[in-house]
């Protein structure tokens, strides 16, 4: 990926709101560890997780942008886009455990969270590395900006 700062943020928000939302809608009913929780509550938790990835992500992108400045090419290798899943997932999981994420009373079980988080991440990463260029022909030349 060859992002600019605003391109990074726009792409993240756009893909979470589209791909992330669709994946969440499809996956929540089949996630493990649901116990006796009602489907509505599980969806609520799933959406809060998704929104948190978006909100925290804006800060993460600032950090990534800064780190990218040390790279001569000013690129963000494909692998980085995948591996950043680890620190981002850990931070969000930590915040959920501490019960500081607004909108949910009790954090989801570990399996529920990690499967949901990883599947969304993988789907977004795959779409960003190819299919995204099909409808948006100018996106890759504008550092990932959509507007």
């Amino acid at each position: 990926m060859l992002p600019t700062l605003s391109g990074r943020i726009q792409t993240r928000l756009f893909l979470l709101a589209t791909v992330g939302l669709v994946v969440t809608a499809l996956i929540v009913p089949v996630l493990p560890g649901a116990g006796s929780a009602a489907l509505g509550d599980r969806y609520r938790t799933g959406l809060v997780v998704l929104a948190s990835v978006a909100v925290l992500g804006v800060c993460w992108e600032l950090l990534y942008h800064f780190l990218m400045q040390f790279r001569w090419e000013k690129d963000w290798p494909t692998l980085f886009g995948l591996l950043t899943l680890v620190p981002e997932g850990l931070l969000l999981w930590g915040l959920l455990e501490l019960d500081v994420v607004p909108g949910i009373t009790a954090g989801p079980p570990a399996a529920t969270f990690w499967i949901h988080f990883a599947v969304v991440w993988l789907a977004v990463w795959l779409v960003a590395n190819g299919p995204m260029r099909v409808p948006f022909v100018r996106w890759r030349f504008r550092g990932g900006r959509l507007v």
Partner: protein
Amino acid sequence: MRSSPPSRGDLTPELLQTSQWTDELLHGAGIPVHDIPFVTVGGGIGSFVTLDYLRVYGVPTGSLRVLSNIDTPWETYEYLTRVSQIPRPERIRSDSSSRPDNLWGFPSYALEEAWRDKSLRHLRQVATEPIFDDYWTPRAGTVFQNLEREAKRISYWDMLVKGQVRMVRRRVGGGYFTVLTPPEGLSATRRVAFRSRYVHLAIGYPGLRFLPDLQDFRERYQDYHHVVNAYERHEHVYETLKTRPGVVVVRGGGIVASRVLQRLMDDREKYGLQTQILHIFRTFVTGSHGPGVFMRRRGGDGWAYQGFNYPKSVWGGQLKAQMRKLDGEDRAKLYKNMGGTNTPRRRRWQQQMAKGRRENWYHAFQGVVDKVEPSPDNRLVSHVRSDDGQLRQYASDFIIDCTGLEADITEHRVLADLLQHSGAGRNPLGRLEVERHFEVKGTASGDGALYASGAATLGGYFPGVDTFLGLQIAAQEIADDLARRGFCKKLGPLRSTSQWLKWARNKAI
């Protein structure tokens, strides 16, 4: 029997001297005029990707012509890559999603090769490049095959008009005249003209320049055999080395030098040869270099290392956005900071060179060559001055010039004419100054526009011009500008997707 070219319908002194032409002027000279709204001059990769964009945007073949002296868009590129040691099975420099046959860049070449070979190897490499592996790059042959498929799909050959373009002049009342000299026997007149509202120039390299000391040697001693340029056929060098041991001087620090070294080293290994290699770098890079901690490029053993000919983000990211805002001095400075000859750091090349240094048959050093002379035993002597002021002499059997200096834009007749008659000017690097949307500054004519892309425009708001992806970026800017002018419809997400589906099914458009 060859007929002599027709003398009818030729350029008159009046036409040559008049910067802006009227319809009557051409009529008076007896030059037939064809009306076509858009012509592209060149017929290489740059013309091809521009036509591809316009055809995908919905422009019919009847409104488009490509004026060229080659039969297929990849002919010149294939010639240059073949002589510089990239035959069809070898891999080129640019990356997996630089696909001149596919404006979306999806699926990438790597995905296509993975599908065809039923192997995940290619995908693993693109997923881990450039950290754990070399950049994945496609085979030259893959590029040509796909170009042929796309050329058929967009009816490329229906738009091709063969011939040598002589000049483009502005037309009184708007638009342009492009004058073509058709191949002998194909036209009743010596020239034909195309009257169009839009012209696009993609003539490739204005010309190649050889190193002055080598050019001097070749001319003085009429020896074109022992001193060769990597951009011309020089297979005899490798063939001779197979018959007897020899010393070769390689000059240059770019990817072509890497390729030539690879060939020499591959042959050495394959045929058990004794070739000795002397590699002269004018600038010998010993390590990471650059103006600051946020701008340091890797280097070593003489080379500056970089995957592509500019830092990657000039094709879409931060550096592209940054350069787009710069003019004059500031632009020239950023070009200087990120420019310079460089080559990719490929693992195989590193191994070969390390082996050569260990076994004492590959010697790389800094030096500037003062002159080259023949020795009494019919070899070549290079007089080399190093930065520490020492003068040394090196004898060799061959010299391969891999520097690929590019000539001034005025070496190309069409560009020289444009500078002289049509208001075109130069950018901070001395090439043709173009706008952000690749219109040549100062050449507007009524409601018409003249665009240019490729090597002739290096130094503009976008640095990566002389590459497949750069030519596609230019093509997109041009197509969007033409859409603003009402020549075609802009490509939105829905139409783009439906056009992509046609591409995927190889459905003719």
